[in-house]
């Protein structure tokens, strides 16, 4: 019987993914980019949809929510996992609505009439069984996967619209999106890049070696020199870990200082972030503190050492978001968020 084998295979896959996430979070496993995590999450969710036993959309949503909660608990700082779960839930809702025949728009807009008369969409309990639902959902998830695979290229294609020749561009740490962005522009234009190394992990060094090998004039500076050199910088282009619903960022340590320095010199701050990084909810006070290697041990016992991994950057300091669907102002992010996720899924 294929059933039980499928199930054990599925649970094995899920467990393997969870342990990978946990190890990635504690720094012992290999570091993965968020695009990779997003793809793997979506693939896993597709597998769950295909192989788990469910009869109606409601059941499927329950299963996915449950798995989603486990996955986000494994590594809370990796928000792409939760984002993908919410995307899939939204897909399921849409497919269900389409199967029922009601138009999507009517469902999406919560009209005042609906709120007052019927108590909203809570009547919709997704209990109907539709035979083609499974196929439709899997097809939609495949589309999502294709979109995910093309995000970095889509963003990189827009590079020439934003970088002119002989510019000095500043960036911090290491972002694969920004790397692809700059390398694409470098094929046609000559410009100079300054990379802030972003202690203590100094990921900026990798970024700099990679960019200079592509022929871009690169300079590595220490974090302390960010404000000192900012007066000669024309643009600041950064990547981020998460984009928040208010248009703010949760980005790598040191980004807030960079954003303040850019604001002081009125230098535009451009964030290259694919859509899957948009996150409706993020636990604000959960900021990982990783270990900092300090050699002199005798004083270590009397000293508190702080090493936060992420910084919060408020939306007022950001000029532009470049995503795979184009450029947006920070004030537009809430709208994109409402199109990507259903409000009931914000809390998994």
């Amino acid at each position, binding site marked *: 019987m294929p059933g039980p084998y499928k199930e054990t295979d599925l649970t094995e896959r899920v467990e393997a993914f969870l342990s990978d996430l946990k190890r990635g979070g504690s720094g012992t496993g290999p570091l993965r980019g968020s695009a990779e995590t997003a793809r793997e999450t979506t693939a896993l969710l597709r597998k769950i949809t295909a192989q788990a036993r469910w009869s109606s959309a409601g059941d499927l949503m329950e299963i996915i929510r449950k798995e989603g909660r486990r996955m986000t608990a494994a590594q809370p700082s990796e928000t792409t996992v939760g984002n993908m779960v919410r995307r899939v839930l939204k897909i399921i809702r849409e497919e269900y609505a389409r199967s029922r025949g009601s138009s999507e728009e009517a469902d999406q807009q919560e009209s005042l009439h609906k709120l007052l008369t019927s108590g909203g969409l809570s009547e919709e309990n997704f209990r109907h069984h539709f035979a083609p639902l499974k196929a439709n959902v899997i097809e939609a998830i495949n589309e999502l996967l294709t979109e995910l695979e093309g995000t970095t290229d889509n963003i990189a294609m827009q590079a020439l619209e934003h970088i002119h020749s002989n510019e000095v561009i500043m960036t911090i740490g290491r972002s694969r999106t920004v790397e692809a962005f700059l390398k694409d522009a470098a094929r046609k234009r000559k410009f100079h890049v300054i990379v802030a*190394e*972003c*202690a*203590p*992990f*100094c990921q900026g*060094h*990798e970024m*700099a*070696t990679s960019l*200079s*090998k592509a*022929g*871009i*004039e*690169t*300079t*590595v*500076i*220490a*974090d*302390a*020199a*960010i*404000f*000192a*050199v900012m*007066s*000669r910088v024309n643009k600041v282009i950064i990547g981020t870990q998460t984009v928040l619903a208010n248009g703010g960022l949760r980005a790598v*340590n*040191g980004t*807030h*200082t960079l954003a*303040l*320095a850019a604001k*002081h010199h009125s230098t535009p701050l451009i964030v290259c972030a694919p859509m899957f990084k948009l996150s409706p909810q993020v636990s604000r006070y959960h*900021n990982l503190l990783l270990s*900092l290697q*300090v050699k*002199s041990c005798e*004083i270590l016992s*009397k*000293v*508190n*050492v*702080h*090493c*936060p991994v992420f*910084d919060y950057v408020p939306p007022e300091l950001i000029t532009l978001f470049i995503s795979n669907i184009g450029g947006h102002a920070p004030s537009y992010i809430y709208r994109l968020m409402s199109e990507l996720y259903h409000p009931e899924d914000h809390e998994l």
Partner: protein
Amino acid sequence: FLLISASLFSVTKQTEGKELTKEEKQRLRKEKKQQKKNKEKKDEKASQGSEKEKKSGSLAAAAPQPPAKSTTVKTPSAVPAPAPVSVPSSLEAPAPVDKPSKTKAELKAERRARQEAERASKPGKKGEPGQQAASGKQKAPPSELQPVIKRLPEHIQVDNPDVLKKLAKKLERQQIPLRLDYGYKVSLFSHLHQYSRKAPLTQQLSIPSTVIHPAVVRLGLQYSQGIVAGSNARSVALLHAFKQVIRDYITPPNEELSRDLVNKLKPYISFLNQCRPLSASMGNAIKYVKKEISNISSQCKEEEAKSKLLNCIEWYIKEKIILAAKAIAESSIEKINNEDVILVYGCSSLVNHILFEAFEKGRKFRVIVVDSRPRLEGREALRRLVQRGISCTYVLISAVSYILPEVSKVFLGAHALLANGYVMSRVGTSQIALVARAFNVPVLVCCETYKFCERVQTDSFVSNELDDPDDLMVTRNGKTQLESWQEVPSLGLLNLVYDVTPPDFVDLVITELGMIPCTSVPVVLRVKNVDQ
């Protein structure tokens, strides 16, 4: 070098001024007539007229050339002239001068000055500058608007091959080896030197060196390897080395001590400059020592002169560094309250001293030490503070915006305070001041007055120090990413040492003369010049 030549200039101009008093009186009479004419012409433009007088009055007497004068006259209007010319003019801007003079060329410049005056603002001058100030004492002011043949310091003209050739010739004359630049320099900084720590200058000297005193050789090595670091430490070490030089000095026959000793010191100073560019505090200390030496009268016997000089140097160290630190600590303690959280950056001897004193006096506070790569000086400060029993937290500079909401005050040290109110300090200071301003946390800078400098600077590029670029490399998990950075042609490493903080980020400067705002630095400089 800039400061030394400025002081020499002021001395010569003072003597010239005294010789011209008779001519001045004639010119004063002519000027009075012109003033009356102007007043009759336009009453509305009285301010313009008086400004014009101020400009004409402020024209220099001794052999000026019209173009040079017009550029010096442009000083008050603060029009940015090309770099070499504006540096001398801006240096002399603080002290308003009123020396009437009338030649054809000067009249032409006067007319030009009138045009400028319409645009210029009035920098605090009196009603009738022409007569009163000129008849008053002749201070350093006359030198302000001389067409200055000011030499730019060599260490910021590395991109000029003529300057490099001149330097090489000078060093050859003084028998000091020339230190070569190392590694690929970022194009924005091609005008500065970049040396490698692994190739100290002393390797190129013969041992024992006949030209340079061994104490100075040792000092140079300590500077270039970073063993003696920090502006106070460097100045004190320099003065101690000079004391040793003076003790071992013997006047050669047919030579005067006051002149010969100064000439003896010149190659030492070039040598130290090659080992590591001189700091502003060291420059001021050298100026003081040279002045004291040249003031020794020829009647003095050698032993007497030497002991006098040694006492002067002792006095300088005691008064300007040690007692100043005490005074600053006393004023700062008023600013430290119980339950304060104080943020400090790097290792400033003065700020550490203040914290120790406050802790002794029984104030309860805790300290957050911010550190940055690649120097990691904060660890030294952390060690000293913890040894005294002060509770500390340690963060890297990228975590400043994470930790600032807890902080009540920021105490920063300074390397030098520039005449336009900018604070020159370790790189990263301006960043901390910026973020503190964004969080509304007060920033206090502690600085002794001997570090006040007449230079002006608006960004961290034109005059800075480039440290060894190899320091930026780091090994994590056995891998060094930037190991072969020299082989990659488009990769450069930038290791800046200083940066300048704009005065609007700084709330207060604590000096031994009191607590002043950043913008009062030129006032203090003026007062010091008058005292001397």
